[in-house]
């Protein structure tokens, strides 16, 4: 049982980082990412291939995956060069995500297609005995989640964070105030991409085996659910949201004995529940479960702003 809890903890951690990425792009930056599953796959495959074919060690492979996904995301955002409407952007991300999945499925010479990649090394896999490895992995994952939370909190309270929120609320006003909206959007999406790359790498380390079916729509469904449940824009809330969603999802494995359904049907029921939950939360709980936290946080952080001794502010 303790083993199961440790493994669950690891899954919650890397799902949490993925949800944080979506929260930064969509919750904070207002850029919907419907291709999340594809970018996630790109992260996992980049990390695995850098190790298996490129001979990188685990640290640099993960770093490489982060750079690759960040760059691809930045490029995708760059296509919105002239249009700023979210409808177009959403369909572009959906399409790019689908293309990435198709590449993973069809380019056998690189990704082994539907067979997937096996034998992915993991950090310090040789030095730490397999029996205690899950504990190390959990500690590493928790440390990374905390690092991400810290970095994102710093980032969203920085001048750049204010630009990000300004672009989300009204890009025309942000542009009128002299902010470079396009460049801000490229950076928002690229930073999210870096986090997706990290989450993908952890996914590859954890399972040590990846194939295209692991990156299906359920990834998108649960990530959106986590962000909405946690409260858009609230980083800690998102991680908690991810934890709740993952526990419900994984917990539904135990429901197998209770309901007479096939594996396919059970998977369908899960997604139906997520979809219904998503809509209900949007209607009845639009600010998520951590609304109070978020309100306090914004109040605290925005109160010192109008102080007179901030001439630096104007320069940024």
């Amino acid at each position, binding site marked *: 049982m303790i083993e199961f809890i440790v493994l669950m903890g690891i899954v919650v951690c890397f799902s949490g980082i993925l949800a944080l990425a979506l929260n930064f792009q969509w919750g904070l930056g207002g850029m919907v990412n419907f291709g999340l599953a594809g970018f996630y796959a790109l992260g996992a495959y980049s990390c695995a291939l850098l190790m298996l074919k490129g001979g990188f060690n685990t640290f640099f492979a993960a770093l490489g995956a982060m750079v690759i996904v960040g760059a691809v995301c930045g490029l995708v955002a760059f296509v919105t060069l002239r249009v700023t409407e979210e409808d177009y952007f*959403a369909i572009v991300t959906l399409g790019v995500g689908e293309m990435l999945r198709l590449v993973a499925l069809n380019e056998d010479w690189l990704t082994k297609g539907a067979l997937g990649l096996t034998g992915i090394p993991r950090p310090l896999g040789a030095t730490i005995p397999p029996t205690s490895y899950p504990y190390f992995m959990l500690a590493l994952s928790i440390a990374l989640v905390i690092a991400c939370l810290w970095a994102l909190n710093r980032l969203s309270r920085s001048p750049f964070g204010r630009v990000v929120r300004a672009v989300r609320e009204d890009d025309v006003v942000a542009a009128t105030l002299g902010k470079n909206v396009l460049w801000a959007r490229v950076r928002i999406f690229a930073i999210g991409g870096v986090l997706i790359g990290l989450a993908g790498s952890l996914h590859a380390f954890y399972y040590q085996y990846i194939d295209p079916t692991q990156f299906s729509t359920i990834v998108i469904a649960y990530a959106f659910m986590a962000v909405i449940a946690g409260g858009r824009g609230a980083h800690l809330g998102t991680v908690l949201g991810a934890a709740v969603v993952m526990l419900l999802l994984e917990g539904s494995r135990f429901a197998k004995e209770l309901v007479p359904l096939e594996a396919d049907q059970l998977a369908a029921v899960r997604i139906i529940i997520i979809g219904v939950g998503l809509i209900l939360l949007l209607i009845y709980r639009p600010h998520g479960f951590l609304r109070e936290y978020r309100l306090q946080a914004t109040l605290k952080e925005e109160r010192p702003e109008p102080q007179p001794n901030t001439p630096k502010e104007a320069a940024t």
Partner: protein
Amino acid sequence: MLQTAFNGLVTGIIVALPALAVTLLFGVLKFANFAVGAMMTVAAYMVYALNTELDWPMLPATVAAAVAFGFMCILMDLVTFKPLRERGGLTLMVASLGLGFVLENVARLAYGNAARSYAMDLARPFRFMDIRMNREQMIAFVVATLAMAVMYVLLTRMPIGRAMRAVADNPALAQVRGIDSAAIIRWTWFIAGMLLAVGGVLIGMDRAIEPPMGASYLIPVFAAAILGGLGSPLGAFVGALLIGIVSEMATLVIPPNYRIGIPLLVIAAILIFRPQGLFGQAHIRR
């Protein structure tokens, strides 16, 4: 070559139906509905149920399912989108994603992942000037053309169509002129639902009936609507034909697995060079 172009034309004219639905919904409701794929899937399965389980012939089954699905769309709007109407396009879009998940998986729950097909007897392909056309393609061609003609008359000649275009163009002005926008929204959903149902059946006939069938058309459908300029019905029709022909012709040069990349490239190109689409008008926001 000619054969490929013909196949593309048929694909395009099938895509035109959902693309028109997307563009109408976008015009009146101002959000991109990502549930259209799953909506087509559900409608296709409804016809499948009538056709194979109750032994109805295809035509009455399709008509009945289209009308029923029109009402279902009104209902779905009431439950899902109406409470969110004031929250902006982004929220509605995410809600439509959620609705799409629900619909696709209801179909999966009911009929499983296996690909199915309608109970129709096989017919010999028909030849004309070296082009092989099978019966499904001809049915698709005739039905879709007919549907587009009806839509054209509806949008240009009938009061309801004019009212829809008025609401799409300027909701406030339409309201001042005494147009009941709630009724127009219901009508738009009903018409879009019928278009999606017919589109779903044609796709099911052309390919196979399976849960991801509708979602796999999302990108070409949106590409067609964007190419024509979101909100422009004529644009959606022309855009769909172009997308169909171009992506089918492209399979002569690129691997067919990556067919979906063509509409994506088209979208990227439009966004960079002509964001308002072929038929849309450039407008300044606010």
